[in-house]
């Protein structure tokens, strides 16, 4: 998922380490939220929420509804700034491909969001429903329940979920490390090629000057 280029959220910067916005960005986001809140209730209702997400993302209606139901814990049909801030952080984490890091850093709020029924455990169907938010693929999901469902009840409690986040974070770091190494190798290769070309050119120049 990509945020609409040039939209307001596109300009916000998410801290890559902590997956949070800076104070200044939060202040700006508060102003944005107050502008969207036309009824001055300090909340966004489902209509405004829908049009906001339709404007800044490419999500379809069912996805937006799923997200709204996830954020609207008390089923009052409105979300406050706290939920809005959470949503923006999730969107920016997606935009910057920091989903694993986001889940790791904010495992408790994410767990509570995914735990729709408030049973302090998450079933595979919930994970499946939100895989577009946190980029959890089906294969990973199967592995997740195979490896981390220690109690064997086909549900993940918070401790199991936390283990999963640590595991995905490790995997993410390994991937990043491998990517960096690959880039470094590529850079060295390019440098060598450039050096070789330079040498060849200087040799040709010398030979031409001799003629």
């Amino acid at each position, binding site marked *: 998922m990509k945020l609409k280029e*040039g*939209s*307001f959220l596109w*300009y916000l910067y998410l801290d890559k380490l*902590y997956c*949070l916005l*800076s*104070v*200044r960005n*939060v*202040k*700006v986001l*508060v*102003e*944005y939220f*107050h*502008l*969207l809140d*036309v*009824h001055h*209730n*300090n909340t966004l*209702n*489902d*209509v*405004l929420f*829908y*049009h*906001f997400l*339709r*404007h800044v993302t490419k999500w379809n*209606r*069912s996805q937006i*509804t799923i997200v709204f*139901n996830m954020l609207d*814990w*008390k*089923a*009052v*049909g409105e979300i406050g*700034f706290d939920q809005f801030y959470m949503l923006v952080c999730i969107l920016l984490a997606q935009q910057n491909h920091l989903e694993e890091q986001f889940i790791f850093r904010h495992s408790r709020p994410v767990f509570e969001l995914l735990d*729709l*029924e*408030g049973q*302090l455990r998450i079933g595979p169907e919930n994970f499946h429903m939100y895989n577009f938010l946190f980029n959890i693929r089906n294969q990973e999901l199967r592995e997740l329940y195979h490896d981390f469902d220690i109690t064997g009840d086909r549900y993940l409690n918070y401790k199991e979920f936390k283990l999963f986040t640590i595991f995905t974070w490790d995997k993410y770091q390994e991937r990043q490390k491998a990517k960096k190494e690959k880039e470094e190798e590529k850079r060295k290769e390019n440098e060598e090629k450039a050096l070789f070309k330079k040498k060849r050119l200087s040799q040709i120049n010398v030979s031409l000057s001799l003629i």
Partner: protein
Amino acid sequence: PAQSPALSRLDGVRAQDPCPQPALPLLPHSPLPLASFLVCGPQASLGSPGSKISSPDTEVRNLWTEATLSQSKLNVPNACEDTDLEGSSVSSKTPHQRYNGKAGHDLNSGSLAWDDGDDQDNFKQEELDDHDHSLLELELRQGSSQGSHLEERDVDSKTESEISSSESLLNISNYAAHEAYWVEQQNRLPLPLMELMENEVLEILTEALQSEPLPQIPQRPWDFAGLGPLGLWEWGFRVCLPCQIPLPPTNILGAPPKVKN
């Protein structure tokens, strides 16, 4: 643009004064003095803009901030050390704890040590001065003619409070350790981005207004009298009841109210 009575009165004072005194620094595109934007912690910025203006004395943090700004030799970075940006330590400490922790060694002459009985008189005097200063700020912010307490006061008191606050601001800005923090606090959104934000919100609201009406949706078992789970609205994007915006039909069935422990 029309100037507020409080500001024009202040300008009049400046014009009469033979020795021009340093005024409160103003932001480029805002009539408010810079002091009013100084907050000490992320929580202070999260409230709605109107709430701070309407009741500045009810918010303890605001009182503390305004009070400390008038301390000419205040060691501001130390005073703000415990307010880290993530807000973890802020939430765990009350303002009273902050005073207890800092007043003995951070603030000059212990004038703000609430627990010391000997310093009560000093503190009261400080509090009165701060109250004058906060009244001036309040009037500047409100920009209205109501409650003009400062009209009867001496002109010198105004200029003195201006000097003290501007001196303290200079002290604050000269301190390098927390420069980034103050810059972060004082900087406002660049104007093009503000315009972009407003335009985008306008587009979103227009889209919401122009959305089409939808046919009747059958009632749900938990829906009493068709008014939704709480008697206010129905699930799905059907109609915005507060503003009566009709919306396109949805094939998503509503969900029952969730129960979280």
